[in-house]
């Protein structure tokens, strides 16, 4: 090891000035997937997943989340100096999602715009960079978004969980923040647990290899390292959010790390919306911020296949109170629900290929 100070800490304190979620209204129950593919219903990984409608994609959903974020932040969007969108469902292979989002929210033209890609941690990777840009003094505000309309091959185990949704975060000076970033950390390795090659419609995965050597190893290492650097303990956190590919994984990693079920329950959305990939840990954080009191600590650890984890230690401020109600809460979106069957899902998600 050459790096003896692994924690990431900007020269100026940074925090979250605004946050916002978006989850589409349609729900595909896991039992409906099991019905079609003749699977056992005993061990379904979630209850149901959120599905984007015909007129929705990562661009439109990111704009929704960004507008909710701006409503809570109450700032002039022209002051945003970076609009970064992390996703594995960018509508274009070449042409940024982020310029469309930046234009739609009024952040252009004096801004950076770029798309991030790192499987399910593309969004938190954007947050890390956004912290750095504000913390270095290059920008007053930066906007980082994690959003997905995840792809699951019909009949594959991931089809049960591959959901849609995500969240946006406006990073800015600590003094204006609803939540201070106490420190962050990233842990990566070349671990091929899940991938989608260029021009392929659906991802592939290493089945059981996605667990122990991928999800658990990276999340546990990132969480341990950050807490050790901060001198914090699981009991110091009111809430914890871990990447949520299914219900069991975050529950197990929380237990292994020493967190109690009640610390993760507020942010554990996967049973009701599925795995929102680049949005997963971030949308969980929005649900926590909706209910958190000022002065509490929150640990967030994402996981992206390929593989890596970003860990963040946060502390809410007095400014959080009063901002939560300025936009729809994440639970409002969870409750906004229209159930669809597999046929409708097939149509909405373009599973019926007619030529």
């Amino acid at each position: 090891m050459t790096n003896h100070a692994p924690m990431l800490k900007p020269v100026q304190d940074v925090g979250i000035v605004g946050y916002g979620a978006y989850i589409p209204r349609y729900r595909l129950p896991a039992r409906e997937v099991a019905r079609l593919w003749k699977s056992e219903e005993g061990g379904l990984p979630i209850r149901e997943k959120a599905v984007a409608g015909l007129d929705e994609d990562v661009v439109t959903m990111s704009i929704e989340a960004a507008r909710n974020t701006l409503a809570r932040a109450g700032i002039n969007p022209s002051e945003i100096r970076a609009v970064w969108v992390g996703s594995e469902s960018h509508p274009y292979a070449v042409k940024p999602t982020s310029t469309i989002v930046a234009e739609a929210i009024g952040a252009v033209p004096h801004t950076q715009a770029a798309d991030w890609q790192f499987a399910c941690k593309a969004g938190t990777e954007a947050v890390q960079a956004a912290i750095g840009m504000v913390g270095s003094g290059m920008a007053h505000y930066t906007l980082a978004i994690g959003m997905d309309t995840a792809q699951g091959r019909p009949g594959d185990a991931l089809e049960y969980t591959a959901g849609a949704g995500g969240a946006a975060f406006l990073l800015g000076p600590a003094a204006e923040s609803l939540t201070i970033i106490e420190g962050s950390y990233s842990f990566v390795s070349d671990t091929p647990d899940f991938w989608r090659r260029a021009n392929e419609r659906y991802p592939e995965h290493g089945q059981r290899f996605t667990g122990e050597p991928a999800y658990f190893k990276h999340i546990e290492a990132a969480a341990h390292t950050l807490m050790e650097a901060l001198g914090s303990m699981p009991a110091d956190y009111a809430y914890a959010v871990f990447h949520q590919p299914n219900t069991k994984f975050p529950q197990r990693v929380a237990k292994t790390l020493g967190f109690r079920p009640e610390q993760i329950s507020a942010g554990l959305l996967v049973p009701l919306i599925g795995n929102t990939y680049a949005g997963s840990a971030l949308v969980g954080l929005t649900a926590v911020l909706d209910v958190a009191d000022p002065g509490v600590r929150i640990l967030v650890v994402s996981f992206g296949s390929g593989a890596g984890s970003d860990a963040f230690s946060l502390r809410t401020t007095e400014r959080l109170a009063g901002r939560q109600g300025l936009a729809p809460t994440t639970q409002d979106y969870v409750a906004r629900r229209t159930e669809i069957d597999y046929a409708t899902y097939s149509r909405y998600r373009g599973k019926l290929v007619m030529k």
Partner: protein
Amino acid sequence: MHAPGSALPEILVAGVGLTPIGEHWEKSLRSIALEAMTAAVEDAGGLRPQALFVGNMLAPALSAQTHLGVLLADFAGWRGIEAATYEAAGASGGIALRQAVLALASGEMDRVMVVGVEKLTDRIGSSVEAALAAAADADFEAVQGLTPAAQAGLLMRRYIHEHHVPEHGFAGFSLTAHANAVGNPRALYRRAIRLEDYASAPMLSDPLNLFDAAPVADGAAAILLTRGDRHRPAGERTPIRILASAVATGPLALHDQPDPLGFEAALISAGRAMAQAGMAARDIDLFELHDVFSIYAALALESAGFAERGQGWRLAAEGEISRTGRIPISTLGGSKARGDAGGATGVYQAVEVVLQLQGRAGEAQVPEAQVGMGQCLGGAGATVATHILARADRL
């Protein structure tokens, strides 16, 4: 010296080693094999082998690696020695052991290492299934989609029909294996299961359910053998001798077997081994059979003479295969719960028999074991290798 009873010269076990069976994602085929071989060499007080016999089935298909003999000899630091791989599907390890016995018996060699190794977790799902199915007749079985589980399902259905086996009649094999594995720290599944677990398991190939089938995973086992008249193992440890080594084959394709439930190759192989050792089934204290599917455990018990035809399942149902029963099998969990490392199985069995005979099986110890038999199967009983080992101090 030909001791009373055995037709073989005195072949002794100098040392044994094995790795836990598991999903060793972070280890390569050669690392797993080296772990087992190093343990066997240490167990033998640092003895260097003259030759290495490798048992492996899947490396060409799943690791794109042939030529394991030299790969492993070189990796172990034994450049110059003779080395080669022997392949006979799930019986590969038993065949490699048999070749080592022949080499020692011929007088050509004094010290031989046998390693069985399998690395499956570098590939997933259908590619592993396809590689395993290649052990059947590729032109007439595998090409039709007949997998090992499907073969076993067909045999189990016929057995239940002919012998009027009640529902869950095979459960005892799975329950015993899992109960035994609890005492084996190197087992893949160290958890006892209940009849309800067995009864509610998902179906793999009706009537064969998930708990009738052994889980496949990575592993390696090694055994270092010497000719007793030229190299006697040092130390206080109970000397173990190989009394018999026999291989037999039958038709490869299930549909070519005139009497599929007769398990003829197993009958011939076990019969030859017992004749070689000058023993009968009643002289065997434990039997490490190849319970890759529970139906094969029943057929192996019958063909080796531990049960009448059609009655093998009753031994399991009546508790006769437990460590204190009439004929203990899968004493450290067997393929079902210790885990099945494909072509390494025959060597795992031999090592486990040695551990039992030397009183080194810990919580899984079979009391008073003096003679043990190991038997591995290639395909649906197409190749069968049987070995009988005994405490040399009690002969």
